């Protein structure tokens, strides 16, 4: 069996998603150990530009380009990747634990009758044996999972699990003509891709999250300004979303999104367990809260005990200065 790795590449607005480039970077590091091949699968319509970018990250870029693949659908994408996996026989298939990945990979794994490990956050080695790191119970337990010999699993990883590095040589682009018929039983009536949100919450390097202490939706503008300055995203606690101050798409936590940005700043977030379960894999956590006993301080690296309405305007100004320096 090969030791090759196949990464399913997601892209948006003409560029590959960061999570896909992270997986390619990690995949390259692994295949290089044993002279195996790293494949990047780019599937879609008029996706050749993406392939040109991705070839800086993979040994071989497999492009399947046809009109039926313009938008992601599980039926067409599963059957295309199924055929690619059968042809190229990789030892593992990697993808992002994204909205698309969570829809696609289980169905693909069932089609191929292989196991799947989802929502992983890392890769390690035990002797020569590869093992996958996956949090359980909202991060209360970290499990390490390995595969029996001869198994070619699917593994999906959370965004921000690895760093992105381009390597020096360009890979070969191979076009595969695979036809994929749409399932007539599933008719898409309309599609709203959002569009206005700049960065995906799970992929953001910087998240500033507002809690109940923000006192109302009108006060989130300063968080928006800070997020824009930092190229990040505004998040919200469950209480805030339940009060309809922010959309569900912004929710960080157990019943919302699990995030691991490089820097997370919680403002007026108390730090209830269901929230911290969704953010405690963040690299650096800052909490601003006027209550020194707020549980969030038990998770934070740095804390400011003060009224956030005094802190936020200054924080906005100072972060803007920092950005100008760079």
């Amino acid at each position, binding site marked *: 069996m090969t030791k090759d790795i196949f990464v399913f590449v997601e892209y948006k607005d003409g560029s590959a998603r960061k999570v896909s480039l992270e997986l390619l970077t990690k995949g390259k590091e692994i295949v290089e150990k044993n002279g195996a091949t790293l494949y990047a699968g780019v599937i879609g319509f008029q996706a050749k530009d993406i392939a040109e970018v991705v070839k800086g990250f993979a040994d071989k870029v497999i492009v399947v380009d046809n009109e039926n693949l313009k938008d992601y659908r599980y039926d067409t994408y599963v059957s295309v990747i199924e055929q690619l996996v059968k042809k190229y026989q990789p030892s593992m298939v990697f993808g992002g634990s*994204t909205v698309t990945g969570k829809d696609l990979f*289980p169905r693909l794994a069932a089609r191929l009758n292989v196991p799947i490990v989802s929502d992983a956050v890392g890769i390690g080695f035990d002797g020569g044996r590869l093992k996958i790191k996956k949090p359980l119970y909202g991060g209360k337990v970290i499990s390490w999972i390995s595969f029996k010999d001869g198994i070619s699993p699917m593994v999906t990883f959370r965004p921000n699990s690895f760093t992105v590095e381009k390597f020096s040589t360009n890979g070969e682009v191979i076009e595969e003509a695979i036809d994929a018929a749409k399932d007539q039983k599933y008719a898409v009536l309309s599609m709203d891709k959002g569009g206005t949100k700049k960065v995906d919450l799970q992929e953001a390097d910087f998240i500033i999250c507002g809690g109940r202490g923000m006192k109302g939706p009108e006060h989130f503008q300063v968080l928006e300004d800070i997020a824009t300055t930092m190229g990040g995203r505004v998040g919200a606690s469950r209480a805030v979303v339940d009060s309809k101050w922010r959309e569900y798409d912004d929710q960080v936590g157990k019943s919302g999104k699990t995030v691991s940005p490089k820097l997370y700043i919680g403002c007026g977030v108390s730090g209830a367990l269901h929230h911290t379960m969704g953010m405690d894999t963040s690299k650096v956590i800052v909490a601003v809260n006027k209550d020194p006993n707020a549980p969030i301080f038990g998770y934070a690296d740095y804390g400011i005990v003060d009224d956030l309405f005094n802190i936020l305007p200054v924080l906005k100004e100072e972060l803007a200065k920092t950005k100008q320096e760079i």
Partner: protein
Amino acid sequence: MNIIVFIKQVADTEARIFIKNDQKSLEIENKFNMNFFDEFAMEAAIKTKEKFKDSQVTVCTYGPKRAIEALRTAIAMGADRAFLIDNTGFETEDSLIVAKILSAFAKKEGFGLILCGRQAIDDENANVGAMVAEMLGIPHASAVINFEVVNEKTVKIDNEIEGGKESAEVQLPALFTTQKGLNTPRVPLITGVMKAMKAVIPTVDPTTLGLAKEDIDLNASGIETVSLESPKQRPPVKIIDGESPEEKVRNLIRVLKEEAKAL
């Protein structure tokens, strides 16, 4: 219409969890609930039954004996029947095997519509729904936020897609996984709770579902847990002091730059 709801009993988010000395298994405080996202599936099933009166809501889980309590919750909410497929001696973390068992159950029972939560909050896999649909050869939609059974053949839904949402019309039989925001799960009435307490919930032996034993037994999985460990503890919080908000923020920015290298 036969509606099947697959649920999972999961540890409460507040439950204390300890890693046993073997570093491979867990001891979980005895606080278990129906999985958060499965409650939306239950509610959608009961609403559908209210619209199509001749429907039957069957709830099923593959789990240990204690999971019968989650099935009772489902009956209290309004499920007509419940089945516990008892996993004693077959415990697995492998979604592929769980999906094989649940799809075998669905095949045996017959179904027009299958609902389940978008993911379990313990392993956060989000696998079993789409896998069952694939094994049954029916369409699926993940993370449904609007759901309406139009007639015996057609369902209209909105669901989450990358960065937005999609509306679709799906022909039954089909499977849908439910997302927060779909509905407000009902709190069982006392009459429902009484009914649930008295309900006889049959236990199903997983080997009677027509699957080969070697496909579902303890050696069936292609994955194995190497070890379990506790997450790294963060050092205690450093409270940033200062005479004024300005000073505090400046001190914060400095440590974020110099110490944490986060800016």
